[in-house]
């Protein structure tokens, strides 16, 4: 056996010696992080899509004017200084010195103005900001101003938002691309350069340290602070097979898994060379979308029946399993965020099956099928859909669980047809906490026809969200949040199913990870 092993190893060594090029040798001298990303990167434009894999890629290449720190407060990033006029209508910004695009041309204020306009035409919070904006203009090469029609309290929060679409700054010629058309040039001013020649869409993306990047002096904190790059190159290769990705990490073929599969983590947890830990401080909200257009959930009583009949812990236990990584949370804007509130949430926080059944009966529910959409190719949403099925059955509903892939669900959920004719009643989905943490960002901030899938119709939500956006006083904002929470729960816009955190797994020789919803590769060292 030993002899065979040696012979085989010898053959491999011989094969390894037979090389044609020296590219590999040159690469061997560099500090390289080999990582497996959260998904396959195909789209490189962070304004064209809200996909998180594109957002994460974009943090490598592009920079932002402001960024959230670990306290979720916006801090200047590309901006050196800013001031607000006494009437709170004009925000003036001056850029830091030494900012360069990856083609070594200087970053100009005009670039930022064009970038904000493109983002403001596409992103929800951006559109809200542009709605209150009178004009935005460059003053000179290094400074620009944003003039509001009326004072609002979320300008810096919007410019520093960490959830898609992030207002990344691009060269003016790129930022002038129609926001509904994908950009073709990936030139940023961020800490890493995108290597176009090595990009294989859906498979591999490679970044190289941008030597012209000047980091801020402050220590890194979430997306804010100094983006000090301590490695030469990041090779991000998507692996469709989760088990093989875990094995590759255990074997040292890759350094980092950005999103290891929940059910496989334990296979690598005992490996002495591997760390597994949550990296996102807030994580995700799991929630149930309910179609308000058709019986039985067009009746408030039927939706309230769901609140009384659901146990959040059942969903979280099945989807995540590790109690350290989930928490029951009834807050619409999330737990652990500045906008956490539990007003009017007694029904969801309790469990009363009899009350649930009684409410369902009073809503006039007979035995008509409840169409529940189940995306079987999604490792989080599929088990959640199965729990939802059992939950609704326990409440006495006749559940028609329809299996499909996620792509089909994205089309199906947009259908306003009768549930029996291609529509739906219920599906479970998720959102990042940073993406729903305030009323302007939140998935359900709009009303009726404008609303997200399920089409809840309650004008109070829209009015209160606008009040919150305009309010500058923190205490009054808190009051509005409480009222919004109460209204969401009373009308049952949708049903929060709890909060959970995903984990990252990495080799122990990789250090300096910054806790964040997106994995940042600055500050990371490889020993």
């Amino acid at each position: 056996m030993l002899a065979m092993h040696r012979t085989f190893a010898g053959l491999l060594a011989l094969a390894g010696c037979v090389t044609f090029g020296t590219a590999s040798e040159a690469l061997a001298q560099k500090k390289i992080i080999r990582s497996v990303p959260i998904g396959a990167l195909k789209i490189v434009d962070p304004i064209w899509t809200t996909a998180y894999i594109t957002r994460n890629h974009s943090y490598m290449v592009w920079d932002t004017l402001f960024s959230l720190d670990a306290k979720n407060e916006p801090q200047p990033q590309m901006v050196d200084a800013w001031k607000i006029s006494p009437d709170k209508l004009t925000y003036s910004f001056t850029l830091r010195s030494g900012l360069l695009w990856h083609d070594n041309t200087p970053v100009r204020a005009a670039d930022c103005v064009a970038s904000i306009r493109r983002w403001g035409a596409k992103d929800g919070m951006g559109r809200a900001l542009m709605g209150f904006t009178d004009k935005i203009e460059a003053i000179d090469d290094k400074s620009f101003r944003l003039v509001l029609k009326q004072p609002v309290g979320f300008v810096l929060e919007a410019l520093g938002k960490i959830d898609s679409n992030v207002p990344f700054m691009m060269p003016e010629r790129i930022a002038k691309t129609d926001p509904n058309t994908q950009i073709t040039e990936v030139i940023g001013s961020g800490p890493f350069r995108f290597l176009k020649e090595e990009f294989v869409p859906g498979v591999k993306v490679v970044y190289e340290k941008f030597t012209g990047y000047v980091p801020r002096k402050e220590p890194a904190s979430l997306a804010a602070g100094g983006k000090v790059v301590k490695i030469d190159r990041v090779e991000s290769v998507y692996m469709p097979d989760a088990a093989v990705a875990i094995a590759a990490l255990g074997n040292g073929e890759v350094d980092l898994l950005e999103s290891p599969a929940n059910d496989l983590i334990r296979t690598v947890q005992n490996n002495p060379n591997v760390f597994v830990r949550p990296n996102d401080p807030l994580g995700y909200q799991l929630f149930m979308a309910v179609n308000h257009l058709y019986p039985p959930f067009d009746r408030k009583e039927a939706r309230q029946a769901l609140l009384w009949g659901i146990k959040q812990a059942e969903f979280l236990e099945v989807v995540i399993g590790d109690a350290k990584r989930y928490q029951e949370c009834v807050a619409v804007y999330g737990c652990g965020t500045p906008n956490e509130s539990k007003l009017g949430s007694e029904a969801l926080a309790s469990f009363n099956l009899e009350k649930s059944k009684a409410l369902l009966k009073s809503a006039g529910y007979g035995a008509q099928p409840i169409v529940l959409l189940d995306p079987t190719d999604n490792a989080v949403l599929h088990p959640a859909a199965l729990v939802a099925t059992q939950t609704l059955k326990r409440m006495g509903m006749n559940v028609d669980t329809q299996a499909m892939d996620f792509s089909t669900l994205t089309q199906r959920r947009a259908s306003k047809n009768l549930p029996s004719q291609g529509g739906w009643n219920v599906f479970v989905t998720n959102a990042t906490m940073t993406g729903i943490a305030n009323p302007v960002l939140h998935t359900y901030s709009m009303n009726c026809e404008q609303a997200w899938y399920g089409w809840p119709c309650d004008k109070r939500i829209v009015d209160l969200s606008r009040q919150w956006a305009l309010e500058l006083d923190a205490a009054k904002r808190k009051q509005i949040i409480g009222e919004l929470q109460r209204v969401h729960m009373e009308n049952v816009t949708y049903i929060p199913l709890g909060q959970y955190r995903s984990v990252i797994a990495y080799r122990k020789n990789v250090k300096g990870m910054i806790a964040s919803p997106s994995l940042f590769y600055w500050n990371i060292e490889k020993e």
Partner: protein
Amino acid sequence: MFSFIARRLLATIPVLGVVALVVFGILHLSPGDPAALIAGDHATPQQVAAMRSKLGLDQPLWEQFGAWIWSVLHGELGISIFSNQPVTRLIGQRLEPTIALTITTTIVTVLLAVPIGVIAAWRAGTWIDRSVMSFAVLGFSFPVFVVGYLLIYVVSMTLGWLPIQGYRNLGDGFGPFLIHLVLPSLALGISFMALIARITRTSVLEVLNQDYIRTARSKGLAMWQVLLYHALPNAAVPIVTVIGVGIAVLIGGVVVTESVFAIPGLGRLVVDSILSRDYPVIQGVLLIFAGVYVGINLLIDLLYVALDPRIRY
């Protein structure tokens, strides 16, 4: 012969036309919305509609089909909805891994399976034959991903002999290129090997009962000479057919192997595209696959002539 080839090549045009029409029809009639995927999970219905309009997906189907066919006739397979890159470029990026995997798998398979099949036929009814047939049944029965996982566990994780996953281009060096193809080729080759060994055994067994074999033996030829020079060439037609069809299947059907071993080939490209409803990529790749199938079948037909002089077209 030339007129045969010309006729066959001309016949591919309607075949590809039908493939194009069927693929386009099935794709666009099946549910799923690339615009919704691009716009993101929390885009508003209005944003999704705007994206759909920008991508031209709100146009009548016949217009979309016409535009695609027009670009195909001009040598373009379209632009990926997601990556915004030409489909020909995407296919070009994925061609090398798939072809490399197909070639190494075919070489390994043919070199092992044909001798095994011949030996099994020669020793028909003995324990050797039964062992070969048992292997063939096992080879068919084990799904590729199970074989892949077993190989990874034993060869890579336990013995540490080979990498678990990945692909290196030939340009990165022949050694790394070859090392990364050993396990996937073995995983993929086992079921293919079982098929070829079984067909070879059956064909050779049939030939071994012929009078000319008896004559060859009576002339005093050694058994290996009889098998190699008389039996195998006369049994080659069905074997070549299976190998040819197998190669065509490998080019289009290595999805599982490519996924398990993280090889960025055409199989993964087409599956990823189907899951995201990237219509131009799916249509382009399937059209290429159809062309490859037709081409390989033509090649097999031409090989028949070389292997059996009685065959004329």
